[in-house]
């Protein structure tokens, strides 16, 4: 194994980790505010990928506009899911929301198959995104660089929003205690909807990245990355945004290095490796790396 090869693998891990991190943030934000593991979250990735493909194919829009369209599409779908499915169930047992999220996932996947057919599609990106950039001894495509930079920009924007703005503080207050948040004058329904919107916008962006990076998308593409991002959120400590980021990058790097550094005969076990890691983390650190011990919502 050569050093450039290792460097290539690290870059690939960073890219995969960026996408996992973006999806994991949504899992964590939604869990943090409604104590719900939303298993439909991975399917938002699919929606983002198809929205991105449509935007590229139909109008040949510039990439920043495509990103904006995907962010908005994700946010809208997230808000609709919250309003139609999870709000009516608020206050019911946790397992009810969990099962409902599986139902939403199945509905979204099958709707996509009905409308778009189950055939995978090629995700074409403009040629300039495929040009190579040389960074020292590694060569990466523009799109690879864009993915990592965009992910980091979005994460910094999110953390700034949540930490320092009035609405961000209100979201954290809502996540902690609904009734007391209401006593402060906070409209908690709006805060919960906002958490779904932000989380889903980020997941949709990850879908766009996924399509652009791997070149192929399909109606079921979101399921596995969604589950892995859930693993990333658990590793980082579900409910914690910084934990989700950390978990995403750890998982992305570990998965790529597992495939790249171990004998090829083992690379077929990459998914087993990821979910094996989940079991070990749950055994050793039930609250993840940065998670607090949280009781369920009363």
């Amino acid at each position: 194994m050569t050093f450039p090869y290792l460097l290539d693998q690290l870059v690939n891990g960073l890219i995969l980790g960026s996408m996992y991190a973006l999806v994991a943030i949504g899992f964590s934000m939604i869990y943090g505010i409604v104590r719900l593991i939303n298993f439909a979250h991975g399917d938002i990735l699919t929606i983002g990928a198809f929205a991105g493909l449509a935007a590229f194919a139909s109008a040949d829009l510039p990439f920043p506009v495509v990103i904006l369209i995907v962010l908005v599409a994700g946010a809208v779908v997230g808000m609709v899911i919250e309003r139609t499915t999870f709000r009516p169930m608020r206050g019911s047992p946790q397992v009810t929301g969990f099962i409902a999220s599986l139902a939403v996932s199945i509905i979204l996947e099958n709707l996509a198959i009905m409308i778009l057919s189950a055939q995978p599609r090629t995700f074409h990106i403009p040629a300039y995104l495929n040009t190579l950039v040389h960074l020292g001894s590694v060569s990466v495509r523009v799109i690879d660089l864009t993915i990592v930079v965009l992910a980091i920009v979005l994460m910094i924007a999110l953390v700034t929003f949540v930490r320092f703005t009035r609405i961000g503080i209100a979201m954290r207050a809502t996540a902690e205690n609904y009734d007391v948040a209401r006593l402060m004058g906070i409209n908690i329904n709006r805060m919960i909807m906002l958490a779904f919107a932000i989380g889903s916008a980020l997941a949709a962006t990850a879908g766009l990245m996924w399509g652009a990076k791997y070149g192929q998308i399909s109606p079921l593409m979101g399921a596995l990355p969604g589950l892995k991002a859930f693993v990333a959120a658990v590793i980082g400590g579900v409910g914690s945004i910084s934990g989700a980021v950390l978990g995403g990058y750890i998982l992305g790097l570990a998965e790529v290095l597992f495939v790249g550094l171990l004998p090829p005969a083992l690379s077929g076990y990459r998914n087993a490796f990821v979910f094996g890691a989940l079991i070990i983390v749950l055994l050793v650190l039930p609250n993840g790396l940065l998670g607090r011990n949280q009781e369920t919502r009363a």
Partner: protein
Amino acid sequence: MLEIEDIHVNRGGTHAVRGLSLTVGRGEIVSLIGANGAGKTTTLSAVSGLLRPRKGRILYRPDETAGAIDLTAMKAEQIVAAGISHCPEARQIFGNLTVTENLRIGAYLRRDAEGVAKDLADIHRRFPILEERGSVPGDKLSGGEQMMLAIGRALMSRPKLILFDEPSLGLAPILVEQIFDILEAVRADGVTVLLVEQNAAMALDISDRAYVIEAGEITLSGTGRELATNADVQRAYLGAA
């Protein structure tokens, strides 16, 4: 300032408040005393909109020429905007927010940045410890500090009426005295106070008027002094033999 007319409120499936009426006049301290589970917190929650009465009316500022506002049809956030602040039982500080964020979130609905900054400075002057520990998470404060923070947070919305739920609960006697001094200072600033307390002796001492609540109904009312000298009240709530 506040007129509660014959409200019935359910809480967690029990009929906790059964036809309760009381009034609070502008600038008064009125307290509601009673045993655990008598319906005190439920009454306050109905005023602040956390619980909705299934019968009866709660009128805010019935003395205004603009007419009274019926709170029973309003959401909690509208009630805050109307000028009522509820300082909840057990302080309920946001433990993940810093002390300063806790204070700022109390002013969530206010748009006058200058007024908010001025009120924050006032609260820092009154409770210097809250400025000193401003960047510390709320759950790292002691019980007494948390109570000051809860009071400060409730004042940050610049309310006309504050509901205090057991502010002395769980505090050392010296702090309890301090908290009651603060309540009197709040009233002196022109804020009307509705106080719920188990510490009946202290509550009656600072109250203009008071009500005794038993099993969700008012059983006695009068001035603070009248109730403090009432034989039944002394036996039941003031620990007299």
